[in-house]
């Protein structure tokens, strides 16, 4: 399977199953519409005749030879032989955990999937140290031979339960040695309660910190509001700068959500860059299509062109020596994760679980509150391994749409939770998310291709 597209003046061909990325000329781009394996040694007559209407015969012949050469090398029209690996996709040790240490929140962001902290459960709960400890023990005991354990303090707003966060970090550290493991703590915060003491602790103990802000003040404040309805921008920005500064600009990112209200979200990314951040993420809102800020099919053309614009902005900045990472365009075409990892993506419900303040276990933070997928409870010691198996078997070859999709090794089958919420089945892709994901990938690959092309030009 190949995927070819034109973007930014480049003709790009992705060979899906080898991961090969090729830049091709116009003739080859057209020729690829007309040929596919099995290949003959010489270009078929009818193809030459058809192509000759627009191209020179000699060029068609030589282009055909190059296609066949790459095919023989296994980097064009390469075969899909991954299904056998997918068959080994069995339950794995648990290596990552999301602790919902605090289901309450001090903001009332309009689009929050946690429904202002209570996950639609109608309760506002704090996790006790006891429950947190049980969760960490559960992770330590169920992580098999995995040495690095990820533990994300999440909410609601986790800083509202700060003492427990600190105690849990201390507890985790005290048990690393005996288990021969290492915790990587992370925290996702809205910044409202950050102070120097918390910053120092976070910077010492957390291997990553995620700072929520949507971009320009007016964009942020329209949706990210305090209980009294005022926006939070002014309160958080200086704190974020201080925190990032103190951690020497490393291992953090500022992340925002974009909605129908800011389809010019590239401006928000730029705003965050201009405010001094260089690790930036902006995510499409996930919500009911009936909400006034929802993204729907109708917004897709605008979103696509904004992604393209952003890709160009990034290339332009790069040329001037100004680098920043936009998370969704980050891609390593050579040393990315292995194909096995790509079959399954996030690992929710299998390698990754979320724990609520009551000790309930869910496949991930986005499944919290969906009774069908409650996996068990830490207090009564239950854990449903059938659900774990179901998630272990959720990979790109068990998802009909994904199997045939050119983006499968980059997207890894999307988000199981999104799939469930929108389609009622974790294995059925949510088309709108797919469209955006594919566009982002096209842009990300284009950025790499453009840089490669530039280097080649420089060599000539």
């Amino acid at each position, binding site marked *: 399977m190949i995927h070819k597209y034109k973007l930014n003046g480049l003709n790009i061909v992705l060979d899906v199953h080898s*991961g090969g990325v090729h830049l091709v000329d116009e003739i080859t781009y057209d020729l690829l519409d007309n040929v596919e394996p099995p290949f003959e040694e010489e270009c078929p007559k009818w193809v030459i005749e058809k192509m000759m209407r627009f191209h020179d015969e000699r060029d068609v012949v030589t282009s055909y030879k*190059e296609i066949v050469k*790459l095919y023989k090398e*296994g980097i064009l029209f390469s075969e899909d032989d991954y299904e056998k690996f997918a068959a080994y996709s069995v339950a794995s040790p648990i290596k990552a955990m999301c602790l919902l240490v605090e289901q309450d929140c001090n903001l009332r962001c309009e689009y929050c999937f946690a429904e202002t902290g209570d996950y639609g459960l109608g309760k506002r709960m704090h996790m006790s140290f006891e429950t947190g400890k049980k969760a960490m023990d559960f992770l330590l005991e169920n992580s098999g031979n995995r040495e690095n354990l990820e533990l994300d303090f999440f909410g609601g707003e986790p800083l509202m339960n700060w003492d427990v966060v600190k105690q849990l970090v201390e507890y985790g550290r005290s048990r690393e040695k005996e288990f021969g493991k290492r915790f990587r703590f992370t925290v996702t915060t809205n910044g409202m309660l950050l102070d120097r003491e918390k910053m120092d602790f976070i910077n010492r103990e957390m291997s990553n910190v995620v700072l929520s802000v949507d971009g320009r003040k007016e964009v942020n404040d329209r949706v990210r509001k305090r209980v009294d309805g005022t926006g939070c921008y002014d309160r958080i920005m200086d704190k974020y700068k201080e925190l990032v500064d103190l951690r020497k600009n490393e291992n953090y990112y500022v992340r925002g959500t974009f909605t129908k209200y800011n389809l010019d979200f590239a401006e928000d990314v730029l705003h965050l860059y201009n405010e001094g951040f260089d690790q930036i993420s902006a995510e499409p809102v996930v919500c009911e299509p009936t909400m006034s800020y929802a993204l729907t099919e109708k917004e897709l053309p605008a979103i696509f062109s904004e992604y393209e614009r952003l890709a160009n902005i990034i290339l332009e900045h790069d040329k001037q020596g100004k680098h920043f990472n936009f998370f*969704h365009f980050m891609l390593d075409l050579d040393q990315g*994760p292995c194909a096995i990892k790509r079959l399954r993506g996030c690992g929710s419900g299998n390698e990754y679980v979320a724990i609520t303040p009551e000790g309930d276990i869910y496949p991930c*933070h*986005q499944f919290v509150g969906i009774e069908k997928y409650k996996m068990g409870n830490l207090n009564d010691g239950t854990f449903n391994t059938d659900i774990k198996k179901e998630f272990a078997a959720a990979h790109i070859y068990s998802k009909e749409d994904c199997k045939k999709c050119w983006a499968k*090794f980059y997207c*890894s089958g999307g988000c199981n939770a999104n799939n469930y919420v929108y389609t009622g089945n974790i294995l059925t892709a949510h088309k709108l998310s797919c469209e955006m994901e594919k566009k982002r990938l096209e842009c990300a690959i284009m950025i790499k291709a453009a840089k490669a092309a530039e280097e080649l030009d420089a060599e000539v």
Partner: protein
Amino acid sequence: MKHIITINKANLKNTAAKGGCGKCQASCQSACKTSCTVANQKCEK
């Protein structure tokens, strides 16, 4: 090659044979969280 330039190593297949150790970071694909696409991760082997 005159018509086609390959810009990467195209080595995905090799990684299937050797891969799957599970040492790498978990990666939420979704909008709400760590927001990694799998492809932006590093192999940690």
